[in-house]
């Protein structure tokens, strides 16, 4: 079952869901959220006068790691914000979800927007920020509108705005609507974009915690990261850590796409075996065999299916297996898929979305795409494979932001694990996997 048509059984997200617990697609309003225990964490902070530093310590203890892609420890990031800063500080939520395969923030925002608002208010209080923005991906206009509605509800109820819950803390939160640029998911490009400019990443350092939005100290976190915070405050960092594994606290929403029977979002404890996650998604579509998996969004290395079947879904296990958990977007490919063609589409994406600022990325992504395209269309040369790897090596690490690395990683990992398919394409000018899946997809549908 999918979450496209509410109401749905809240169990679609899985029995261990915390962020999406009890969420059925229709119960997104403030009253529903309160009935599920919403805003209790915020009330607890003010009733028990929990100090900002104690909150940050609790988040550190939880081992919550950023859900946007890099997996940076959230508590540590929060502690980088200057304590005694005379001017404005900002918190920013990154809902510019555009990493191919990732569609979890959309479900969080449309079906449980208040959990993000509550998490942001708590974060703002912990870091001493009084203004915040939620940057929402351009293509999901209805989600942006709903978030605006949720903001209005929270303001009217005193959870947001001046003197929250009658106390001394004030926090103004606004939604900012993107307009179609993958690069704005990169946090400094996102800040440029809020400033009304082209979304081109900034040189770092300085990092946003010292020079962020409008040059002021700023912390950017992913939607799902903020959404995890109220639970941590209510139940404690240790309990959150216990949901997952050491150094990998909590639950994580995995967006399952590709050749699985039931694509969708599944929220599981970190450390859940991939095989169990695949089963939640109904197993392989049409009962076909698994060939390859990109476990963390298109920018992360692809792994052979057999490797994934033995891997657990947490940051450290996936890293040990040779990839990264990234944004938690799991793209599954079955035995009928041509790896050259899959890579060609990804390479086209990075070529399209390079912001053009750094030469290695602007030029290199074009070279990569054209070379993979050449191989796919039967015009490849034997030396192309080594050239692809060397061009990739010359992009990675030589650009202002990680988009260059993101373009290089798929190329290198696809060739590493499926070199014989590329070689076959070059030698025989056609695919090794006879059928391209179209006819079989139809049969399965």
């Amino acid at each position, binding site marked *: 079952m*999918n*979450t*496209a048509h509410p109401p749905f059984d809240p169990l679609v997200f899985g029995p261990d869901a915390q962020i999406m617990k009890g969420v059925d697609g229709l119960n997104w309003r403030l009253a529903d959220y309160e009935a599920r225990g919403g805003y209790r964490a915020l009330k607890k902070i003010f009733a028990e006068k929990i100090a900002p530093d104690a909150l940050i310590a609790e988040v550190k203890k939880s081992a919550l790691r950023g859900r946007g892609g890099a997996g940076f420890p959230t508590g540590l990031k929060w502690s980088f914000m200057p304590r005694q800063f005379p001017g*404005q500080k900002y918190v920013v939520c990154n809902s510019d*979800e*555009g*990493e*191919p*395969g*990732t*569609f979890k*923030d*959309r479900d969080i925002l449309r079906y449980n927007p208040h959990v993000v608002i509550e998490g942001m208010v708590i974060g703002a209080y912990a870091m001493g920020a009084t203004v915040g*923005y939620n940057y929402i*991906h*351009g*293509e*999901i*206009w*209805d989600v942006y509108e709903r978030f605006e509605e949720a903001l209005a509800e929270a303001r009217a109820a005193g959870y947001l705005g001046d003197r929250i819950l009658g106390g001394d803390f004030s926090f103004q939160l*606004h939604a*900012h*609507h*993107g*307009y*179609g*640029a*993958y690069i704005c998911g990169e946090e400094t490009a996102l800040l440029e*974009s*809020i*400033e*009304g*400019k*082209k*979304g081109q990443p900034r040189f770092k350092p300085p990092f946003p915690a010292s020079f962020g939005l*409008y040059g002021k100290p700023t912390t950017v976190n992913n939607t799902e990261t903020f959404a995890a915070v109220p639970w941590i405050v209510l139940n404690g960092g240790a309990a959150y850590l216990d949901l997952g594994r050491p150094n990998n606290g909590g639950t994580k929403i995995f*967006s*399952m*796409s*590709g*050749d699985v029977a039931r*694509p*969708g*979002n599944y929220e599981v404890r970190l450390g859940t075996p991939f095989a169990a996650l695949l089963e939640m998604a109904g197993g392989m579509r049409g009962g076909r065999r698994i060939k390859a998996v990109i476990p963390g969004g*298109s920018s992360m290395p692809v792994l052979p299916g057999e490797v994934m079947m033995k891997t657990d879904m947490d940051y450290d296990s996936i890293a040990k297996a040779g990839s990264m958990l990234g944004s938690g*977007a799991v*793209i*599954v*490919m079955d035995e009928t*898929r041509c790896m050259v063609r899959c890579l060609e*589409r*990804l390479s086209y*994406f990075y070529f*399209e*979305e390079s912001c053009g600022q750094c030469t290695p990325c602007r030029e290199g992504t074009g070279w990569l795409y054209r070379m993979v395209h050449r191989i796919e269309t039967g015009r490849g040369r034997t030396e192309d494979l080594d050239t692809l790897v060397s061009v990739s090596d010359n992009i990675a690490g030589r650009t202002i932001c990680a988009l260059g690395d993101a373009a290089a990683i798929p190329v290198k990992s696809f060739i590493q694990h499926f070199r014989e398919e590329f070689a076959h394409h070059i030698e025989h000018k056609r695919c090794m996997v006879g059928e391209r*899946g*179209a006819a079989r*997809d*139809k049969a399965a*549908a």
Partner: protein
Amino acid sequence: MISAQGIARIDAAIAKYPAQERQSAVMTALAVAQEEHGHLSTEVMDFVAGYLGMPPVAVYEVASFYGMYDLEKTGRYKLCVCTNLPCALSGAVEAAEHLKRTLGVEFNGTTPDGRFTLKEGECFGACGDAPVMLINNKRMASFMSPEAIDRLLAELK
């Protein structure tokens, strides 16, 4: 150049940002302008620049950087279909081919009657609903099988 309601929406955006940062509202202002005019002509971008106190070239830069702004005229309905890998694994290529065949246009083409413009999109963050299509930047259509596409096209007059 922009209706009173449109100006009200731009003003609401301006109010979200610090008083001296009117430029932060440029994305909303251009979106409103495009909704009212169908595409962003130089005149309308110049108006936005004047309204926000920005150099016109800074507005042009923003308009050409973000993929959902149209600097050229489009058909009454701009149909953008995501063909990125996760969607392609769930029928997006077939959806795109069906659209091209039915409309008789390639990507970036407009039907002779001016009704449809077809575009290729990158990940909308909705891959679980693949194939997905975005209509005039605002309406997301999910599970676009050839039959669902035919129904949708019939509905868009």
